[in-house]
């Protein structure tokens, strides 16, 4: 582990200077899929997580051929430096980052602070639909060491072979609510996976949306016994908040074995006969 900010983060200043450089592609990915149209970093592409970063038939991450098509029409080839940013302190930017790493893209970075910081700094916004010259992209074989599936999570719960980190809000963790306020309930039972630690995703971030420092993150997770000595599986409701925690653990703290359980509570909280812990 190195106590430095690694090269997976870029500043808003860097993006302002390099957003349209050859070999760089800036992409906005928001929870609010309409946010891009309300103004975005000039020259940035916009991806819709509900249609472009998933399999819309089977519940799954984006298929390889669909990702290749998306990247190709965004003008991205295998050597492009992809800089992701978005709303909610980069929730879905992290979701895109995680999937791009699964498919082996080498140079992916996140704009620290995301859309929130860019707006707060009063930087230029564009409402133009940007088009890009088509490129050819070839995805690598998926690296599923970054992803946890249900059987592995069940095994981790039973044998304590991995630390489970629940990144949802405390009210979701205790089962007081079944979904974040104002959003549809998508599970039958509330609570958490037995033995999981509650470390809400927002604790990774400062008020301005940037990530906390290496030392602050190490202290946050170390206080809960998450030190990198043991495998870690992060989960939330649908896997996007936990991809941000996955990013912090894997790429900011440098833990080797970190997985995102994207089935998350919408899978676990709907299963018949599976243990749930409350509060």
């Amino acid at each position, binding site marked *: 582990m190195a106590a430095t900010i690694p090269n997976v983060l870029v500043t808003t200043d860097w993006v302002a200077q390099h957003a349209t450089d050859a070999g760089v592609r800036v992409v906005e990915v928001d*929870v*609010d899929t309409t946010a891009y149209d309300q103004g975005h970093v000039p020259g940035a592409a916009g991806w819709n997580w509900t249609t472009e970063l998933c399999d819309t038939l089977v519940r799954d991450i984006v298929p390889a051929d669909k990702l290749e098509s998306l990247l190709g029409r965004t003008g991205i080839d295998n050597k492009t430096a992809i800089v992701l940013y978005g709303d*909610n302190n980069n929730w879905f930017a992290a979701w895109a980052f995680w999937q791009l790493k699964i498919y082996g893209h080498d140079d992916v970075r996140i704009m620290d602070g995301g859309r929130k910081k860019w*707006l707060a700094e009063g930087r230029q*916004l564009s409402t133009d639909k940007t088009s890009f010259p088509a490129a050819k992209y070839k995805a690598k074989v998926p690296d599923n060491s970054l992803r946890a599936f249900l059987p592995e999570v069940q095994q981790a719960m039973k044998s304590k072979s991995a630390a489970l980190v629940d990144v949802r809000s405390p*009210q979701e963790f*205790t089962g*007081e609510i079944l979904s*974040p*306020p104002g959003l549809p309930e998508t599970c039958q039972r509330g609570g958490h996976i037995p033995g999981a630690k509650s470390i809400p995703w927002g604790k990774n971030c400062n008020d301005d949306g940037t990530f906390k420092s290496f030392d602050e993150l190490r202290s946050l997770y170390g206080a809960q016994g998450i030190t990198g000595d043991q495998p870690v599986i992060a989960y939330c409701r649908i896997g996007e908040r936990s991809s941000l925690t996955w990013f912090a653990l894997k790429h900011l703290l440098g833990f080797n074995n970190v997985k995102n359980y994207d089935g998350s509570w919408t899978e676990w909280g709907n299963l018949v006969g599976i243990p749930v812990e409350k509060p």
Partner: protein
Amino acid sequence: MKPDHQTSRREELAGWPVTIDTYRLGEVYHCTVSNADPGARIARADGSTREEAESRAVEKATRYLAQTRRFTT
């Protein structure tokens, strides 16, 4: 264009803390209402004035928030 007239404030709607963010870009005000935790967008609306954009977004958000149930733990 640069965004201006930016505001962000915390309020309670239907018993839930929310954040109401508004900015103007060009001639249009954009308002987003998000739940305070985890910070997900509940509703958004545009308008030619701040009041118009915010009242539309708040009305929609209040309706959605009122459907959130609390369970005894």
